[in-house]
């Protein structure tokens, strides 16, 4: 570069020398024909014409003119920016904020949505779901159905299933509960990942009675085996049973969250493995290379129909659906992310318009300079290019600052994302993000540079030079007002969206969750592996857990429950009141919780009718259930439900007596429960769980406790008290109900918070825009105002004159903005759970806020105008 520039400079000097020589020779000739030296010089010049234009045109012939111009323009741009540091700082800051926020959102979208999954041929990975017409595709697949699908499938190269697991690891190392997954053979092969060491389960190990083998995570291998390769083949004591380690999973391998141990699914002896009705398995599969998802789906549907015919009791009305794995992983986040990118894009747009109006104001002020440059021989296209270079330089600088802001802002964004953002590990600034930031800055540079650039050199040269920078043409005023209008419109859209979100969050958080979440602790308990041998032992162990927990100071009531409101994990059961069960696709479904007697007291759920369970509800006594008011209304409308009988899927023989009705619990969270498909709720006593299910239930029972002190302060004493006689009983996944309740609104709250920030930014930028434009326009009107004052206008009249101008712009913006805001509010209702449509009140409040802010921003220029001294103003002209 240096060399090229040096070469260029030399060439420039040579050109000058060449032309100078020409002039010298011409002068000499003129003098020889008898003129004085002065006359000769003038004659030679006249003969030659415009020297610098000739030089410039000649330089054009060298072919690297554009580069030279570009460098010159950039230099010029930097110089002008430095001349006005205030302007440059405001413009750069505005742009940096806009492009920084946009880049953060894009980085997240890139990491979560756009980047392919990090498995080989990720587009061929699919998940299979059970599908029923009534409840959609949110079902797992039962083990018998999985085995049939695996045997019959043709379009899928591999098929594997998994479900949650986990148990207490007691050796090597300290006893501790670890998360686990039960997986079928070939699971890693479906994903196409290689184990770090060892092998996957063999077919004969993925069956009842197979040799006890386990695949461990990288983390467990490091912490418990010191990462030694000989760990493969060594024993691992899991749930009191010895397993042989056969493989080590690759680093970061996840199935819906991390897991430490993987055990063979087929060895599971729980009864639900045999039930074709028990749809609890996650199934992943890989498409054959030359087949499409549609083809695979067609085959699955055929298989599903065959199975439905073969097993109508379990499968009628049920089919299978294949979804891309990526879609499954990303889930609902997608729409939220695009929504946020859209909002951030609007902020960037306002920022661009702001800078555009600043630039335009400056361009009008610089008209004289530009006219001068035209007079000196600059071409029009050259000036346009130079203006664009200036704004592009501004845009790029702002964009570069924005990338730095984004780099700092991404981590907090991901951390504050409620719950966990899927694929968060892939969120980082990479070449795609940089490319995005580059194009956004160039595009915005072009966007805000175009208006001033196209405008500047079209004015009549002579007029401009004579008039100076005083007169504002109508087109300029219209353009400025257009900018302000646009900013107001966009600000209204964001303000109304933020307002509607805030109202939604507010009204949702006032909703009754159906429980009293204050001072309630919920924690999983992993029983001591030694007690898991027999059902009576497990019953005794659970009774012991309850008794001991009740003895801890600060604990008021304790109860066990298999599912916890607003926490992940649920159990669905079909029920009916008719003598014969309805066909499966018409079977109503309820959420079923298995609890101990004090559960109502712990959760503060109101008893509406009848009674709740007590210690007399045991295996030996009559089976009973309690239902919630929603189910009571569905099954026994306008009747007394107590004493009625309910047949429940997979639960005992014959209908079961309903002994009580309790209040509805918003199990799906404050925001989502009203729209949930399954809202009926059934409670049944833990004391009546049959012996053969005891082991299964023990694996997911939670202890809940109502406390008189802060619940988290009891975690430690509870944990100590519940270690058990063998000291290997542990608590895990400890939560307070307050946390769970607030998390159920967290996404809405988070979106609201971001929208408020964006709306605030938009409002601020719009105010700066109004201020800037008005200050500029008013400045142009100083002579006119001077005349008005001289003619007797009062200060109030002058202020009103300016405010009126600003009000017209604001109202025009509001009209456009309200239309946009209506559309945006409708979009939000689609995209955000529990969202309510924007109410007129929200519109009114936000419009008033905007008008107030706008008038406030115009007040300074208006007051300044009212203080114009007519004598100074008139002399100024």
């Amino acid at each position, binding site marked *: 570069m240096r060399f090229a520039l040096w070469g260029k400079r030399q060439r420039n000097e*040579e050109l000058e*020398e060449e032309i100078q020589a020409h002039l010298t*020779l011409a002068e000499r000739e003129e003098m020889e024909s008898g003129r004085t030296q002065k006359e000769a010089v003038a004659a030679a010049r006249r003969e030659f*014409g*415009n020297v610098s234009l*000739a030089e410039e*045109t*000649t330089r054009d012939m060298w072919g690297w003119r554009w580069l030279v111009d570009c460098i010159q323009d950039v230099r010029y741009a930097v110089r002008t920016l430095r001349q006005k540091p205030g302007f440059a700082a405001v413009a750069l800051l505005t742009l940096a904020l806009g492009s920084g926020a946009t880049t953060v959102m894009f980085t997240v979208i890139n990491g979560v949505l756009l980047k392919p999954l990090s498995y080989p041929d990720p587009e061929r990975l699919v998940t299979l779901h059970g599908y029923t017409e009534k409840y959609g595709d949110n079902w797992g697949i039962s083990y018998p159905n999985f085995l049939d699908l695996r045997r019959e499938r043709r379009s899928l190269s591999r098929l594997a299933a998994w479900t949650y697991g986990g148990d207490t690891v007691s050796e090597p190392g300290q006893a501790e509960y670890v998360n686990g997954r039960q997986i079928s053979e070939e699971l890693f092969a479906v994903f196409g990942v290689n184990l770090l060491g060892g092998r996957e389960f063999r077919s004969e190990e993925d069956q009842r009675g197979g040799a006890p083998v386990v695949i461990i995570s990288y983390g467990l291998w490091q912490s418990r085996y010191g990462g030694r390769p000989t760990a493969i083949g060594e024993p691992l004591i899991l749930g009191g049973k010895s397993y042989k380690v056969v493989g080590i999973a690759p680093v970061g391998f996840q199935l819906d969250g991390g897991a430490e141990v993987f055990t063979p699914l087929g060895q599971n002896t729980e009864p639900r493995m045999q039930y074709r009705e028990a749809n609890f398995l996650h199934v992943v599969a890989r498409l054959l290379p030359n087949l499409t998802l549609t083809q695979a789906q067609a085959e699955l549907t055929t298989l599903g129909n065959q199975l439905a015919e073969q097993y109508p009791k379990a499968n009628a009305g049920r089919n299978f659906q294949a979804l891309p794995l990526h879609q499954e992983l990303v889930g609902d986040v997608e729409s939220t992310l695009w929504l946020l990118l859209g909002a951030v894009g609007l902020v960037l747009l306002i920022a661009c318009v702001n800078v555009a109006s600043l630039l335009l104001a400056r361009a009008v002020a610089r008209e004289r300079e530009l006219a001068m440059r035209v007079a000196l021989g600059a071409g029009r296209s050259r000036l346009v290019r130079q203006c664009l270079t200036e704004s592009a330089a501004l845009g790029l600088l702002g964009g570069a600052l924005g990338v730095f802001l984004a780099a700092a802002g991404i981590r907090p964004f991901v951390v504050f994302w409620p719950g966990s953002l899927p694929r968060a590990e892939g969120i980082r600034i990479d070449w795609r993000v940089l490319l995005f930031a580059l194009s956004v800055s160039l595009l915005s540079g072009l966007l805000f540079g175009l208006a001033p650039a196209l405008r500047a050199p079209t004015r009549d040269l002579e007029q401009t030079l004579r008039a100076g920078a005083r007169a504002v043409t109508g087109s300029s005023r219209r353009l400025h007002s257009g900018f302000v209008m646009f900013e107001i419109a966009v600000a209204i859209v964001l303000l109304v969206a933020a307002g509607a979100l805030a109202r939604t969050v507010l009204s949702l958080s006032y909703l009754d969750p159906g429980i009293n979440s204050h001072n309630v602790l919920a924690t999983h308990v992993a029983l001591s592996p030694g007690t898991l041998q027999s059902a009576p032992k497990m019953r005794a162990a659970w009774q012991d857990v309850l008794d001991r927990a009740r003895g801890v100071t600060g604990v008021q009531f304790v109860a066990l429950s298999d599912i916890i409101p607003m926490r992940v994990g649920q159990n669905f059961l079909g029920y009916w009141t008719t003598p014969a069960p309805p066909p499966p696709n018409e079977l109503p479904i309820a959420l079923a919780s298995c609890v101990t007697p004090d559960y109502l007291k712990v959760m503060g759920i109101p008893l509406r009718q009848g009674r709740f369970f007590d210690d007399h509800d045991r295996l030996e006594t009559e089976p009973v259930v309690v239902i919630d008011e929603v189910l009571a209304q569905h099954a026994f409308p306008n009747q007394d439900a107590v004493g009625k009988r309910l047949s429940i899927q997979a639960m005992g023989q014959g209908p079961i007596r309903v002994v009580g009705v309790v209040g509805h619990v918003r199990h799906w969270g404050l925001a989502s429960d009203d729209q949930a498909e399954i809202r009926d709720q059934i409670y049944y006593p833990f004391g009546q769980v049959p012996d053969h299910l005891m082991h299964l239930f023990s694996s997911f029972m939670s202890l809940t406790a109502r406390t008189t002190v802060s619940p988290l302060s009891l975690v430690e004493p509870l944990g100590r008290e519940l270690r058990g006689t063998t000291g290997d009983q542990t608590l895990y996944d400890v939560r307070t109900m307050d946390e769970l309740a607030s998390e159920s609104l967290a996404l809405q709250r988070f979106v609201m918070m971001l929208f408020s920030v964006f709306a605030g930014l938009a409002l601020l930028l719009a105010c700066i825009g109004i201020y800037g434009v008005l200050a500029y326009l008013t400045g142009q009107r100083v002579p006119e105002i001077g005349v008005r004052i001289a003619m007797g206008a009062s200060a109030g009249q002058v202020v009103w004159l300016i405010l009126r101008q600003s009000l017209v712009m604001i109202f025009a913006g509001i009209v456009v903005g309200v239309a946009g805001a209506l559309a945006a509010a409708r979009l939000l209702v689609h995209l955000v759970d529990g969202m309510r449509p924007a109410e007129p009140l929200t519109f009114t409040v936000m419009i008033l806020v905007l008008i107030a802010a706008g008038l406030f921003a115009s007040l300074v220029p208006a007051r300044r105008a009212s203080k114009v001294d007519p004598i100074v103003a008139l002399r100024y002209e």
Partner: protein
Amino acid sequence: MSGQKNRYQNRTEILQGTLDMLILQTLQWAPRHGYALSKAIRMNSGEILKVDTGSLYPALHRLERKGWIAAEWKKSEVGPRLRVYRLTNPGKKHLVAERSRWARLLDAISGVLNPSNEESEG
């Protein structure tokens, strides 16, 4: 502004094709510097063709870039260093081609201006 600029443009455009040819033709006899070249063209055309210097130097640099002429700095006895242009071999070929093209063009034009009798009668 636009008037001033268009004047340059028009002149350059009108002379574009022919100016190149005139320069190449004039350089065929001897290498010359810019001033001498413009004088030579003027003199050879009987003072009719006046080369606009605003077009001359761009043309010279363009021809140089195309490789039809080559430039060299020479000391002059009168004083300043002079950039002297000479015709290259590709330039000579180009000139031949240009001249024949020009001749055809002239024929065509004079054909239009002086149509033969048969044609005008027919």
